[in-house]
């Protein structure tokens, strides 16, 4: 069982949370090309390595937060609140 740290409640089992996908996506200008818009809608980083992602503590405080998590080892490298900038973490690519 993966255990995730909620910044508000502390460490809980993964089944209390809902995954919200990649963080820090910014909407492009509305005059952008169809290709840019498609990239914004559909393409995600999907790295084999450190992933900056949103989680919802659905069966807890009900609040969103961010994690930096390694997608091979599932190691949690950073936990930070919504609106905070991406922390500077690098995991050793496994």
């Amino acid at each position, binding site marked *: *069982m993966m255990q995730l740290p909620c910044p508000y409640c502390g460490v809980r089992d*993964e089944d209390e949370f809902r*995954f919200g996908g990649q963080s820090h996506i910014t909407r492009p200008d509305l005059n952008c090309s169809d290709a840019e818009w498609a990239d914004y809608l559909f393409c995600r980083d999907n790295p084999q390595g450190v992933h900056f992602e949103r989680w919802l503590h659905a069966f807890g405080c009900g609040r969103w937060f961010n994690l930096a998590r390694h997608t091979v080892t599932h190691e949690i490298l950073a936990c930070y609140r919504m609106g905070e900038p991406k922390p500077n973490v690098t995991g050793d690519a496994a």
Partner: protein
Amino acid sequence: MKRYSALSLLAGALTGHRRWSQAWRTPELRKSYDVVLVGAGGHGLATAYYLAKKHGIRNIAILEKGHLGGGSVGRNTQVTRSNYFWPESAAFFDHSLKLYESMSVDLNFNVMLSQRGILTLAHSHHDLEALRRWANAIQVNEIDSELLTPGDVKRIAPLIRMDGRYPVHGGFIQRRGGISRHDAVAWAYARAASALGVDIIQQCEVTGLTIAGNRIRGVETSRGPITTSKLALCVAGHTSVLAAMAGIRVPVNSMTLQAMVSEPIKPCLDTIVLSPIVHMYVSQSDRGEIVLGGGADVYTSYSQRGGVPVLQETVSALTELFPAFSRLRLMRQWAGIVDITPDTTPLMGKTPVEGLYISGGWGTGGYKAIPAGGDTMAHTIANDSPHPLIASFGLDRFASGALIDEGAASGVAH
């Protein structure tokens, strides 16, 4: 290639199985090939076979970082079916099912296809309405599907609990759906491709793509550089990683999909039962094990290890629907990486880089697609133009908006 036959089996048995020859060659890696395929999973192997067989291109290497068949082709739950909703998917997957139907003969290898039917359950009146619409769409696509009453379901799979937590209101069946032996499919294509001259190079990881003037020129590998003018990425769960080597972003999320088997028991379930609502599907293997799977672990992962919550959900859905199985012990649980697209339709065809092709986006349902994926990819590479069956599966559908949303239309897609 030595042909397999009843006689060769008998001869093998009489000589204590000491005289079997290698099923495929272990060739030296050469410096240059006409076509390089990355990944010796089902799709890489089948693509190589059809390139050699139908298009006369035999100077081909398949580069595999691990061992042949060690990816999802050897980890899946073996379901083949063509009961898709949209005409594009139906045409592609039915082509695949037809190729499965003749595969053992075509490749001279028994892949043990067993067309035992795939039964999809409805647990409420609304489910049943949705299944009616789906079953009808399948018939309009000229593919077999039959609606079933609760009585029919009970006759086909007597062990199902009809009135439990998930009451059964009916369902539908595609009788041509079935299972086959996944290792045999990989081995059959490997053996046939190798016999036609394809070099299968194991323990050779692709670490970079060489591109100049927007054209593919070769690959960097853990065993040195190779030149080629045509390269296809057949890496399934790693599609994003390899596409990134060419600077291409693909709309794919890599996730973990797990499966598990029980201890073997006497034959008691001779069809595949799938419940889209509780996200569980089950069949019984030739060895008697109950094979089950469910939904993917819902976060990005390249770990190839499944988490406990999904395992628990899958098992509790099974025991609720089949109380008789609650006493069984699970013997093994494992997982693979699946590359899921936003519309759950594969991602196939040309890329913005000349000579670079993608065969991916196989998600949770690419095993059933292996023969058609190989056949159409080979055509696409040989002619540098997408095969008609996959013309709408290209990367460009996301910008044009022409999605083929099977995810919304037909749900669970194993």
